[in-house]
C-alpha cells in the first residue's frame, strides 16, 4: 500500500521534472551557440589600453557599488592585476587592493624588467564556453552579444565557473548563483557607459558598439594593435587589449 503510494509520488515528481528533461534537450551542440556580429543592431565590445592604466582601482570600486558585488576582496566582476616581470623569466601576478598601503619599496629592485597593470573582466566571448556547459540553460548570450546569467534558473552548480578560462565568474554568496560582469547591461541599454568605463580617469577603458562607425570603440580598434586573451582557445573574446605584453594570460 505504502510502497505503491511512494512509487506514484515519485513517478509524478519525475514527470513534472519535465522542465529539466526539456532543458537537457535544449543543450545544443557547441557550434550552434557561437554567434557572429550581426549586420544590423548593436554588438557590444570593450577596449583596454594597458599602458594607460594607473592601477587606482576606481573601476573595481565603482563596479561593486553599481552591481551589489560583495565587498570581500575575492569577489570581482572586474579587477586589476599587477604584473612584475623579472630578469630570468620570473613573473608575479597579483590582483591589486586599492585600499592597501603603497607597495613596499623592497618589492622593487634591480631584477625587475618591467611592471604594469592589466585590467580584467568577463570577455563576453562570442563563442562562450560557460554557455556551452550550463546544464539548465541559465547562462546565455543576448542578441547584442552580452553573456548573462539568469538568477531564476541558475542552480549554482559552479560548472561555468570551472569552464571559464579567464576566471571571470564567481558564486555569489547571497544568491548562491553564478555571477559575473554584464557590461552593466542595465546601464548600456539606457545609453550610459558601464560604471568602470565611466570612472576610469585615463581612458584606459573604452566601451561601445562595434557596429557603429564613429565611436571611441571603433577608433580604439582602428588606432591600436589589438590582442585578446588566450586567442588559441577560440573563445573569440570581445574585450580587446592594446599594448598587451606577451606575458599576460
Amino acid at each position: 500500500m505504502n510502497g505503491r503510494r511512494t512509487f506514484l509520488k515519485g513517478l509524478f515528481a519525475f514527470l513534472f521534472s519535465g522542465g529539466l528533461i526539456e532543458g537537457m534537450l535544449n543543450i545544443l551542440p557547441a557550434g550552434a551557440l557561437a554567434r557572429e556580429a550581426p549586420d544590423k543592431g548593436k554588438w557590444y565590445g570593450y577596449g583596454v589600453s594597458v599602458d594607460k592604466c594607473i592601477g587606482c582601482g576606481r573601476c573595481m570600486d565603482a563596479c561593486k557599488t553599481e552591481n551589489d558585488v560583495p565587498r570581500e576582496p575575492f569577489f570581482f566582476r572586474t579587477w586589476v592585476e599587477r604584473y612584475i616581470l623579472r630578469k630570468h623569466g620570473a613573473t608575479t601576478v597579483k590582483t591589486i587592493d586599492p585600499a592597501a598601503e603603497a607597495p613596499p619599496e623592497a618589492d622593487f629592485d634591480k631584477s625587475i624588467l618591467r611592471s604594469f597593470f592589466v585590467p580584467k573582466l568577463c570577455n563576453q566571448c562570442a563563442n562562450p564556453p560557460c554557455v556551452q556547459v550550463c546544464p539548465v540553460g541559465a547562462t546565455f548570450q543576448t542578441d547584442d552579444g552580452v553573456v548573462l546569467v539568469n538568477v531564476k534558473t541558475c542552480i549554482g552548480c559552479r560548472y561555468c565557473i570551472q569552464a571559464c578560462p579567464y576566471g571571470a565568474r564567481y558564486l555569489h554568496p547571497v544568491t548562491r548563483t553564478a555571477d559575473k560582469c554584464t557590461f552593466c547591461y542595465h546601464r548600456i541599454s539606457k545609453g550610459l557607459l558601464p560604471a568602470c568605463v565611466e570612472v576610469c580617469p585615463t581612458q584606459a577603458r573604452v566601451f561601445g558598439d562595434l557596429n557603429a562607425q564613429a565611436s571611441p570603440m571603433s577608433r580604439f580598434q582602428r588606432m591600436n594593435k589589438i590582442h585578446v586573451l588566450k586567442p588559441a582557445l577560440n573563445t573569440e573574446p570581445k574585450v580587446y587589449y592594446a599594448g598587451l605584453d606577451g606575458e599576460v594570460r
Partner: protein
Amino acid sequence: MVKFPEKIPDSLARLLVVFLALVAAGAFVVLVVIPRPMKDVRLQWADDIKREQAKPVRYAGFHVCVECHGEIYEMKKKGYHRDLSCETCHGPAKAHTEDPDKVKPVIPAQRAFCPLCHAYNPSRPRGFPQINPVVHNPLKACASCHNPHDPKPPTTPKDCSACHGEIARTKAVSHHVMLACTTCHEVPRQHKISPRSVKPSKPQTREFCGKCHAKDARDKMAKDAPRVDLSEHGEKYVCWQCHYPHSPEVEN
C-alpha cells in the same frame, strides 16, 4: 505458421502497454501540462533580460552634472583632470541628481584620497604625475594647494626634480652626476608651466654623446670622460639603446 504476437508472453505484452502508457503520459505532461515559461529557455532569457535592464542605476554619468554645476564642469574640462568623471571622486550620485537637497555625494577631502592615483608606484606608466605622499607637503589637505577641479602646481617649480624626481634621483648617483639636465636638454621656460604642451629637446645623434666620449672630444666636461671609438663602438645604434643616459652603467 506461428502467429507472431503469440510468441510474446502475455506478461511482457502487458508490461509493454504499461510502459507505452507511461511514455505517453510523460509526453503529455512535458508537452501540454507544464506551462511554457517553465520549460522554454528562450522565454526565460527574455525574462532575465528584462530583469537585468530594470536594475537600479547608481552612477549618473558626468554629463548630468553640467546642468546644475556648470562652472565646475567647465573648469574641469580644461584642466588636467578632464578625463576624470565627477563620480570618480564624488562616488555614485544618481540619487543626488534626483533629489539634490536631501542626498549629498561624498566629498573626498581627506589626504589619503588623491594618492590612490598619485602616490608613487613603479608599476604606473612613465610620465604619470606621482608624488610621495609622506614627504609631499605633509599634514595639509591636497585641496589647500591644488584645486581638485583644475589641479596644477600652485607655483612654478625651479628645479627639474620637482616633477622628474625619479630621473633626478637616478642621475644623482650615476656617473653623469656632474652633468646638468640642461647639458643634454634644451628646456623652454614654458615647459615648467605647461609641461605637456611645451616639451624640451632630447639628444638625437650619436655625435651628441661623442662631444665628450669620442676619441678626440674637446668639451670642457670631457676631461674625465671615458673614450670610445665612435666609428665602431655600438655599431649603428644610438647610444641610449644600450646606455640609459641618466644612469650610464657599463654592465657586462
